[in-house]
């Protein structure tokens, strides 16, 4: 299973859970899997073309997926994913 940390703005969709578990082989698959359990979550994370929105950051085991292989970053059992709003800090 993959552990996914859910940021506050998405918790209305996950029944207020800050952490959920899902099965997926990549970040893209994870978004689809989350969306089937928590409908609507994909639209929040991705724009009309399916790309991640400008202000969404995703981390796999604490590493920004833009330093890995983006949305195609592979996931394996036990990985931890954080979805974090990009607008913070500075």
């Amino acid at each position, binding site marked *: 299973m993959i552990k996914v940390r859910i940021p506050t*703005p998405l918790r209305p969709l996950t029944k207020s859970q800050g952490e959920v578990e899902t099965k997926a082989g990549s970040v893209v698959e994870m978004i689809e899997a989350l969306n089937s359990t928590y409908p609507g979550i994909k639209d*929040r994370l991705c724009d009309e073309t399916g790309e991640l929105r*400008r*202000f969404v*950051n995703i981390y796999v085991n604490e590493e920004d997926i833009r*330093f890995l292989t983006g949305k195609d970053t592979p996931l394996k059992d036990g990985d931890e994913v954080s979805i974090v709003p990009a607008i913070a800090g500075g």
Partner: protein
Amino acid sequence: MSKMKALVCRECGKEYPTKAIHVCEMCFGPLEVKYNYEEIKKTISRKKIADGPHSMWRYLDLLPVEGTNFVGPHAGFTPLVRAKNLGAYLGLDELYIKNDTVNHPTLSFKDRVVAVALTRARELGFETVACASTGNLANSVAAHAASANLHCYVFIPGDLEAAKVLGNLIYKPHVVEIEGHYDDVNRLCSEIAGEHGWAFVNINIRPYYAEGSKTLAFETVEQLGWKTPDQVVIPMASGSLLTKIWKGLHEMKALGLIDNVRTKVNGAQAEGCSPISTAFKAGRDFFKPVKPQTIAKSLAIGNPADGYYALKATAESHGSMDMVTDEEVVEGIQLLAQTEGIFAETAGGVTIGVLKKLVKQGVIKKDEVTVAYITGNGLKTQEAVINSVGRPVRIQPSLVDFQKTFKMGKNGGGA
């Protein structure tokens, strides 16, 4: 009627109440304060501002707080220094340094944003304040929290300059060092902010906090005799400061305080962490995050929250961006110190280095009124220059020894 109407998403326009939230639930866009400009316009004037307190609170009408029970009542209204020597050296007729190395109480521009953030946090009922910081912000939050009797947690990267670490500990907040870069600190704090009901000044209080930077634009214009400069050079970490200076200039125009904004806004970064300047030079409107590697630690944000908006503001203003090496940062610090007697931290070295480059490139011209924003004090980043400043001459307490050392005759003269 309140001067704040709502928080509004910069991306999709959805409105929210003026609470401690910073992200749009729909599109993750940043929330920004929406003001009631029509009401503000009825009462604001140059005279009212000029009659106000000798601090940034003279622009209270354009700051997102409700009352006047200020945390940080003395922040801002720092000197705008006419830099004749540095101007002559660079070939500029009218150069000014906006000198926030002497901001009150912690010697960086962060005292402005923190004064707004903590005033607002207290209005919203918070008792604990926190921040993710590259150093200056933490110092300011810790100091202001002490004075306002607020509980305080500051989170910093593990490799900060000694004076910036000490500059937290002295106020006795909880200081948490994270093994990692600022971007790791920031991500962790975003997650902590979601779990604890604290006022994270640059996370859930960010829509208010960031507005404090506008006062650097307001003061510059007022101190120039209600004129906008032709060119400004601004250091960039998250890009928020540049974005807000641009916004501040336009607010003054919208409220009739000035006629026009002709200012070109230029951004400065260090080569070892230049995601925004690199994107600008490549003609992109988006940036790629980087892993910072520079002595300009206060600007070492590899994943800048406002990078996109900084690129936009610079393009709108027909300004430019550039970056300098760490060696050029040290040279910039020395140049400013030795021409104007102002000791800036590394971010100031970045600003001066990029100013020099832009003049050389012909981007900034001789007759243009130019303002360089110097945002932090050199005593906090001594490590950066300690090996470049030489040593004192050491002598015995004797007149003979002194005169011998300086090759002087008995009646003066000599070197």
